[in-house]
């Protein structure tokens, strides 16, 4: 029996070894260029971040990050193959090479960065746990929530964060626990609790499920750090840089005032930082193995960070999420991208 097993296992191991070699022989950039499209792992459905519409077209914040990278690398934001992934599969899909990058609302943590063989290429959305309250309560800050009944989803880190927050502020609360996020929204709607807590990006989506969405407000406090960003495989620094700087290009473009609408006109700009951005002068694209106008393509086809935010989750979307932490550093947020130099 054992001998039989060995007979089968040995060639399998050899094959695996051959696979590992093949992995190092061609870079992700070369693979993407030769395939002609980018394989991008996204959520199977998260409001505002990745959802398919009636026509099967994907849209959302995370999806636009994929499109941005495709625009930078291939010059066409449409050349993306979206691979919908569940939370459990996402890292394996990237590790095994099934996808070229992962853009699926994944929180950047030490463990994930250090032990998965993957790298976070930046932060595309600063999320964090927040509170939703009924307007009629007249509450304007989470500090006023002493004694409140709080609807919460069981078995999540939000439960722990909530306990920590109330204890460290010397306040009491009464948890009302549900096992799904839909359940928490129903409980809040039917008046079983005064407050609903969850990650802020989800609070806005949950608010839309209430019978009177405009009667509830999201409080400004954020009690946990949930920076979400795209990931790539470790050990391919060129590709890591490409994904990282595609994101930086979107953020820098907003800071420079470049939008998908005005970027064509700005080609004649004399502002040196704009000219560097467009690849007319300065570092251009050679260092990353891209065309000189890669950043132009990102903004022209996908838009700057502000446009992407507005379109998918901001004021012009049903979710109406405020910029908050995700505003530019010069506007009171913490969005800060290194300069194009």
């Amino acid at each position, binding site marked *: 029996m054992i001998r039989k097993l060995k007979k089968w296992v040995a060639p399998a191991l050899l*094959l*695996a070894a*051959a696979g590992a070699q*093949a992995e190092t022989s061609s870079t992700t950039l070369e693979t993407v260029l030769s395939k002609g499209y980018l394989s991008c792992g996204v959520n*199977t*459905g998260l409001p505002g971040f990745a959802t*398919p519409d009636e026509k*099967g077209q994907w849209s959302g914040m995370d999806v636009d990050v994929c499109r941005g990278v495709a625009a930078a690398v291939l010059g066409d934001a449409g050349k993306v193959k979206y691979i*919908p992934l569940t939370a459990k599969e996402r890292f394996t899909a990237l590790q095994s090479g099934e996808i070229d990058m992962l853009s699926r609302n994944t929180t950047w943590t030490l463990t994930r960065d250090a032990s998965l063989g993957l790298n976070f290429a930046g932060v595309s959305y600063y999320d964090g746990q927040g509170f939703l309250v009924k307007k009629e309560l007249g509450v304007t800050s989470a500090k006023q929530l002493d004694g409140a009944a709080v609807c919460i989803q069981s078995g999540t880190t939000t439960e722990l964060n909530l306990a920590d927050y109330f204890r460290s502020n010397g306040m009491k609360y009464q948890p009302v626990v549900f096992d799904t996020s839909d359940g928490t929204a129903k409980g809040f709607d039917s008046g079983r609790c005064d407050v609903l807590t969850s990650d802020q990006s989800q609070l806005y*989506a949950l608010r839309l499920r209430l019978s009177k969405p405009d009667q509830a407000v999201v409080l400004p406090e954020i009690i946990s750090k949930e920076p979400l960003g795209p990931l790539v495989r470790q050990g391919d620094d060129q590709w890591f840089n490409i994904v990282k700087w595609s994101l930086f290009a979107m953020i820098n473009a907003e800071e420079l005032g470049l939008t998908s609408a005005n970027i064509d006109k700005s080609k004649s700009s004399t502002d040196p930082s704009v000219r560097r951005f467009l690849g007319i002068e300065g570092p251009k694209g050679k260092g990353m193995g891209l065309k000189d106008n890669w950043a132009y393509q990102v903004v022209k086809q996908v838009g700057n960070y502000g446009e992407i935010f507005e379109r998918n989750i901001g004021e012009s979307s049903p979710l109406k999420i405020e910029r908050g932490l995700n505003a530019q550093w010069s506007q009171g947020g913490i969005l800060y991208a290194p300069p194009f130099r």
Partner: protein
Amino acid sequence: MEQKMIPAREPPVNSRGILGWARENLFASPSQSLVTLALLYGLYLFIPPFWQWAVMDASWTGSSRSDCTTEGACWAFVTARLDQFIYGFYPDSEIWRVNLFFAQLAVVLGWLMIPRIPGKKMALVIGLLVLPVTSWLILTGSLLGLPPVETHQWGGLMVTLVLALYGMLASLPVGVLLALGRRSSMPVVRTFCTAYIELWRGVPLITVLFMASVMLPLFVPEEIVFDKLVRAMIGIVMFQSAYMAEVVRGGLQAIPRGQVEACQSLGMGYWQSMLLVVLPQAIRLVIPGIVNTFIALFKDTSLVLVIGLFDLLSIVQAGLNDPQWLGSAVEGYLFAGFVFWLFCFGMSQYSQRLEKH
């Protein structure tokens, strides 16, 4: 003396017609009457509000949740996305291929089901051998010169049917072979079949699917990219064939040993006696069990949502997360449940007909 036969008189009014039926079946005793009244009251409480919500106040068309009224059901969610629920992300210009797949499925099923049409054996052979091949060729389009459509663009009802169809077609023969193997007198074959069946029956389907989608890619080299749908399909077939084997074995055990001995005395070999004498009887005996397994398989296909495949249920769920349609969960799930019920009910009806004939 009366010379003529006295014509039979009609039974008394209260044991005739609807009244009689109700008296006999619903109000036969005081306790029965009470239960009937309680149930009727329950239905009265449930049905009118549901009717009001699902039909009277419902909105049928619209392009977002805001087009719907707040009182009634928002079926607009289903109507707007119906194409996607059926065809997934299959390219618009190629949808006729999916329709062709549905059509040939319907033709073969109709052929098998309608008693008047002759050539059932032919239909069975086509259903088992030709249909899977042609369906795959049509849907992927790789060999026929059609533009190829990768399986990640498949979705909705079509994926559910593809998974169920291939699951059923493959698990029945594999299950029969395993059942025969488990009763074989050859120790190696018997041990292998028993081990296989016990292994697969001992793990949950979700585990199998996770293994297929999460572990398998790590073990094979990068160039060999197994299609996710194919991986899930293989997992489902492996899993269900173990169950099928046990169902078929139940039937095999019901056939008296004397029949096999009779075959042997007539000079029939193993395969002849099995195929011509034992299996036809055994399978007929376990039709309810087989259909039961098929129905379970059909519903189990919705588990592929845990590995990110868009079957009917998960494509409805993905639609629910569209910011335009947030809050349409009840309508979406009702629709998915109704479609699943239609198929499963159809299957059980067909099996009842099979048993009668």
